[in-house]
Structures are given as structure tokens and as C-alpha cells.
């Protein structure tokens, strides 16, 4: 036994004498770190790295089968899902790993920002980290293109349409993005190159530099209110803290990283196993237009923002705001490299994180049900509720038919069914007078197309009669100015006699 041990030591020394890496790496792992940062708040960076390694490994395994050709990519995903043993699980791991990686990277960024850990001497660590965040999002977008389905196809169309708005060089940029005049084989090839060679290469290099700087400067100490970062004193103070309270990073602090990384990996595995892979949705055939394309979760908020921007400021917003936002993130440590680190003393920082988080959350939520999109099938799939037709005259019922036939329901709901682009019509006659509704329907405006061309006078008449019954039990709307102009005796609004409140049925 002793001989075995001696032989192992000999072997190690033989290797290390020639390699010279084991000793310095061990020493780096065991470097002393202030005891106060051995915290559960400091585990996200290492978890992101572990997820990145998972993505590299699963990505390589998927590349064994995936065919990056516009002709075959979609079919090869089907083969991965259904034919190759465990192919579905690998796709699921890669897809869920991607979502988890984005989430963990974002949490890591927020934690570093709130802890003021980007301040001197770690400014460049932050800047490289921002680049890593952007590269991670780049992986997510190019990865969505790898899943070469309908969403990927139209997502590329959206990307090209945004590019086309760049002044002067719009057309060359579109061609550069697509690699061809249309979305096709060359587009997939170049996104494959980005997803598999270019961005992972940059990520690997960036992660290496990022971790190197963490080792060089040490993991930031736990922020304390009132303990200011000054360029003249910080490094000495940190050094003293390390001498006074230092514990070896491995194992005294790193066990938390290891536990968290294992938990995250387990969560990815569980999601992959129980929820399975993402898509692919329909074939990337642009002649199948019965589709409502949507980006992946991480980009839903952008999709929502693009629905709400007024046309006039949309192009400047799309082209300028991302550049400003990225520049602000990159330059943050240059302008705020010193001073207070603790969140309790940085209300603006806390406010910014809260506002941005709530904003992204709301837009993402909206993106999941897209209230601005017409529901294309609503006019044939959602009947008029019976309560709205009871005790109605033939003309009013004819109006209900017009409402249905002219696809009003695609944008307007009745009893909760139908599109949400326009207002619900359940009580429209209690909010608008007949004249106002006629004007709105025939001339449009305020985000509604004009229907003057699509309705003949008798259809309009019938539609109006039906719409005027929709009051939800309220009194009909009255034109305030009419009352003023009418003679001495102002007429009270007629009672809602024959109308039955549909909600009460």
C-alpha cells in the first residue's frame, strides 16, 4: 500500500515537473478570501460558468446529429426528438440550460451591481462581464435560429427588418445578416457559425479573462455601509482584511458554490426531463402564413416594446436606445468607480434595478399573451353570447351577424372572448353615443382601421342597432353638448327598458 502511494506521488511529480500547472492552479484555488464573502450571495458567477460548460458539452453532442442546412435542419431536429435515443433529452438540456444560464447571468449582474462590486479595482472585470452578458444573449438569439422552425424564420425576418431601418447602409446590413437576398441556407450557415464557433470562442476567452481578474483582485469583500472605496486605500484595506480574516477559497468558501452549482444543474435536468425540449414548431416554410411568430422567452420583452412604440419614434428608438443602454453599462464603473458600495446607501442604484426589473417583467408578461395582436380566428371561432341576442329585434340580430362577419371580434371581445387590440364591446353604448360609434367605425382612427369601404349603409345600420344594445345594464351614453343646446327642458336619458344586462344571465 505504501508502495502504491509512493508511486502515485512519483507519477504526480513526474507530470508536474514537466507540466508546471498543477501547483499554481492548486494555489490559485486555495487563495485566501475575506471570510465575509463566503456567502450564498456569491455563488452566481460560478453557477453561470458551470452552466456554460453544460451548454458547451450538450451543444457538441447535439452537433453530432444536427444538420445546419436550411433543407435539413428542421428534419434533423425531428430525428433528434423522436429517433435518436435520448436526443430529446439532450435538446431539452441544451434549451433549458440556455434559459437557466440567461437567468443566472442576469442575477449575477444584479448582485454585482447592488453590492457595488464593479468599483475599483474591478472596473474591467465588470466591463468584460457586460460583454459576456451580451454574448450570452447573442447565443440565445442565434440558438433560436438553430431551431430552424417558423418562429426562427420570422424572427430572422424581424431582425432583418430592424437592420433595414439603419440609415444609408440598411440594405448592405440586411444582406450581411442574411448572407443572401432572402432568408435561406446561407442565413442558417452564418448563424450556425456564430452560434458554434464565433460567440462560444469569444465567451471562452472572455470567461477566462473574467476569472483571471477575479483571482488577481480577489473576490470583493462584503459591502459595509460607510466603508467607502478609494483608489488610494482600497487595495491596502482589502489586503489587510485578507490577512486578518482570510480563509482558503477552496474549500472554505467554495463549498457553497459547489452546492449551488449542483442544485442548478439538477434543476436544469429536472426541467429537461419533465418539460422536454423546445419545439421545433412548424416547418420554416414562409408560404404557411397561418402563424403568429413569437421570440423565445428572453426576447419577449423586446417583442412587446416593439408593439407599443409610436411609428414616428420607432426607428430612432430601435437604433439609439440599445447603444445608449450598452454604453451606460460599459461606462458605469468608469464614472462610479469609487465611493459607497452598500445598497442601503445607493438609493438610485436600487431604484434603477427595481424599475428595470418591473419593466422587463411587465413587458415579458405582456409578450406571453400579446394583447395587441388580432386573434385571427376569433370571428369564426367565438360565437356571439346568447345573452346578447335574447329579446332582440331582427335588425339588431342582423347587426350581430355583421359584427361577426366583418371580423370585428378579431380585435374586440364580447364576454371576454375575442381580440384585445381594441376595447371590449360589452358596454360600448354606455360609453359612446350612436354618432360617435358610427364615426369611429366608418372613419377609423385611434388605432382602428376605417370600415367605410367594407360596410354598406344597410350593414352599418344593422351593426349600429346591435351595438346600441350593448350597455351591460348601464344607461346609454349621451352627448353632453346636445343637452345644453336643447330647449329649456333638458331631457333625461331614456331608461334602458328592453335591454337585458347580459352579465346577469
Amino acid at each position: 500500500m505504501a508502495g502504491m502511494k509512493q508511486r502515485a506521488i512519483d507519477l504526480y511529480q513526474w507530470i508536474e515537473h514537466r507540466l508546471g500547472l498543477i501547483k499554481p492552479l492548486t494555489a490559485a484555488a486555495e487563495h485566501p478570501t475575506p471570510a465575509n464573502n463566503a456567502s450564498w450571495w456569491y455563488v452566481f458567477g460560478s453557477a453561470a460558468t458551470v452552466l456554460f460548460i453544460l451548454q458547451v458539452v450538450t451543444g457538441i453532442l447535439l452537433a453530432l446529429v444536427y444538420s445546419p442546412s436550411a433543407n435539413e435542419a428542421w428534419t434533423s431536429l425531428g430525428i433528434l426528438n423522436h429517433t435518436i435515443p435520448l436526443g430529446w433529452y439532450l435538446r431539452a438540456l441544451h434549451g433549458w440550460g440556455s434559459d437557466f444560464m440567461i437567468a443566472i447571468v442576469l442575477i449575477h449582474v444584479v448582485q454585482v451591481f447592488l453590492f457595488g462590486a464593479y468599483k475599483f479595482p474591478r472596473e474591467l472585470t465588470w466591463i468584460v462581464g457586460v460583454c459576456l452578458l451580451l454574448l450570452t444573449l447573442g447565443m440565445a438569439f442565434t440558438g433560436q435560429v438553430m431551431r430552424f422552425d417558423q418562429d426562427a424564420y420570422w424572427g430572422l425576418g424581424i431582425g432583418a427588418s430592424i437592420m433595414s431601418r439603419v440609415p444609408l447602409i440598411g440594405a448592405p446590413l440586411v444582406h450581411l445578416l442574411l448572407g443572401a437576398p432572402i432568408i435561406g441556407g446561407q442565413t442558417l450557415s452564418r448563424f450556425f457559425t456564430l452560434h458554434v464557433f464565433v460567440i462560444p470562442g469569444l465567451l471562452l476567452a472572455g470567461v477566462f479573462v473574467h476569472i483571471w481578474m477575479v483571482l488577481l483582485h480577489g473576490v470583493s469583500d462584503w459591502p459595509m455601509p460607510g466603508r467607502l472605496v478609494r483608489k488610494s486605500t482600497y487595495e491596502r484595506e482589502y489586503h489587510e482584511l485578507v490577512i486578518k480574516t482570510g480563509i482558503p477559497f477552496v474549500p472554505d468558501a467554495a463549498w457553497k458554490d459547489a452546492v449551488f452549482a449542483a442544485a442548478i444543474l439538477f434543476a436544469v435536468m429536472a426541467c429537461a426531463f419533465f418539460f422536454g425540449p423546445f419545439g421545433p414548431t412548424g416547418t420554416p416554410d414562409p408560404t404557411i402564413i397561418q402563424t403568429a411568430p413569437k421570440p423565445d422567452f428572453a426576447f419577449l420583452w423586446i417583442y412587446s416594446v416593439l408593439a407599443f412604440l409610436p411609428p414616428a419614434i420607432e426607428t430612432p428608438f430601435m437604433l439609439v436606445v440599445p447603444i445608449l443602454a450598452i454604453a451606460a453599462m460599459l461606462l458605469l464603473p468608469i464614472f462610479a468607480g469609487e465611493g459607497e458600495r452598500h445598497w442601503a446607501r445607493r438609493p438610485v442604484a436600487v431604484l434603477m434595478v427595481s424599475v428595470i426589473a418591473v419593466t422587463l417583467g411587465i413587458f415579458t408578461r405582456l409578450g406571453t399573451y400579446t394583447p395587441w395582436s388580432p386573434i385571427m380566428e376569433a370571428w369564426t371561432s367565438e360565437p356571439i353570447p346568447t345573452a346578447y341576442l335574447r329579446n332582440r329585434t331582427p335588425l339588431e340580430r342582423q347587426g350581430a351577424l355583421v359584427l361577426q362577419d366583418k371580423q370585428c371580434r378579431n380585435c374586440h371581445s364580447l364576454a371576454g372572448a375575442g381580440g384585445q387590440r381594441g376595447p371590449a364591446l360589452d358596454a360600448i353604448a354606455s360609453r359612446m353615443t350612436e354618432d360617435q360609434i358610427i364615426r369611429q367605425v366608418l372613419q377609423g382612427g385611434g388605432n382602428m382601421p376605417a370600415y367605410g369601404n367594407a360596410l354598406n349603409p344597410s350593414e352599418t345600420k344593422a351593426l349600429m342597432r346591435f351595438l346600441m344594445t350593448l350597455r351591460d345594464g348601464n344607461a346609454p351614453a349621451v352627448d353632453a353638448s346636445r343637452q345644453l343646446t336643447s330647449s329649456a327642458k333638458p331631457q333625461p336619458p331614456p331608461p334602458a327598458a328592453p335591454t337585458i344586462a347580459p352579465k346577469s344571465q
Partner: protein
Amino acid sequence: MSEPLEHPEHPDDLNPPTSADPTPEAKAAAHSRRTFLFTLAVGLNAVVGAVLAVPLVGYLLGPAWRKNSFVGAWIAIGSINDFPVGETRLVDFRSPVASFDDGDTAKVACWVRRIDAQQFQVFAINCAHLGCPVRWFAQSKLFLCPCHGGAYYEDGSRASGPPERGLFEYKYKLDGGSLLIHAGDMPTLATQASCKQKPLLQIAPATEAASTPARSGEWQA
């Protein structure tokens, strides 16, 4: 850096310098000819690198430069008898600029509106907002986009929603009994190779719409 961390003994330890050597400065002074040659070699590599880089960058940016194959071509999309007057129909064709490995993505769809015997309008499927596929609703005479709710009238002009202009139109011509359109680039705000005769920011006002069998609307001037 002030070395706040206790870094281990440097890897340099493995190759301890021999103490008898002269100082590095003295060495450098003694090697001025080699220094010069090294500088020269660096310059040489810079030149070779630049010569190498030009074609590489040219290859990379290749798609950005308009080639003849990008401009597109006239393509027949059907007999004019396939399109009843007053109706708008969906037509598929294979892009004349498709490449060998485009698969299904080489297919293109467009909406053909026949105004009268001789007059057509051929609209790109792509919404002028962000390129999603618009759908035609004959009853309400609207094109609706599923992505962000852009809406267009039957003549392609903007009705409502985020688009800032009407639908993209293909140039068309009638040759014998068939309808030909000029197709090339995927239509976006910057790439309407096939629509040179149309103004960029608004499709020509629908003056010919007055002759349509449909009631020309009160909303039209």
C-alpha cells in the same frame, strides 16, 4: 499591482536565471542589430497581414455588396384567369434568387389583387413593420399582421397599427395570359430591389381604386 494576494511562488522558479548573466539593458544594447531585425520582421508581418486581410474581409463582406444575382428577375406567378376581378388571392412561387440549399425557405408567398381586367396589385407577404406574414380578410377588406397588429386596406395602404407605410408592392406586368412579377430581395424598408418605381415611403395613392367595382370609400380623398 501591489500583490494583495499571496500568490504562490512564480512558475519562473522552474527556470531560475543564471546569476552570471549581464543585466537585460546591457544585453539589449549588445543586441541592437537583432532588435532592428526583429522590428523589421514585425513590419514585414504587418504588411503580409494586411495583404492577407483584404481578401478575407472582402469575402466576409461579400453579401453586403449587391451582386447581379441579388437584383432578382421576372417570374410568372400564374395565369391572369386565376385571379377574378375584385378579389385578392394568395400565390406561392419559388424565389428566383434562391440558392441550392434553401429548402422550403426558397418559397415566397404574395397577395395578388386584381383591380380590373388589366390592373393588378401584388403585395409582399411581409408586414412593413417587422416583416411578419400579413393575412387578408376579404369581408372586412383588411390585411392584418399577427405580430404587432399592423393593418392595411385592400389597396395596401396603411390602416392602423405600428407600420409607418403601406405594404410593399412587387412590380408586375402581363405577358400574354400570364402575370409576371419582379422578385428578388426579401422586402424590407431598405431592400425593395423590385419596387424601384414606387416611392419608398408611401405606396402611390390609390387613384385607380376609384375604378374598382367595390364602393370607393368615403375615407379616400
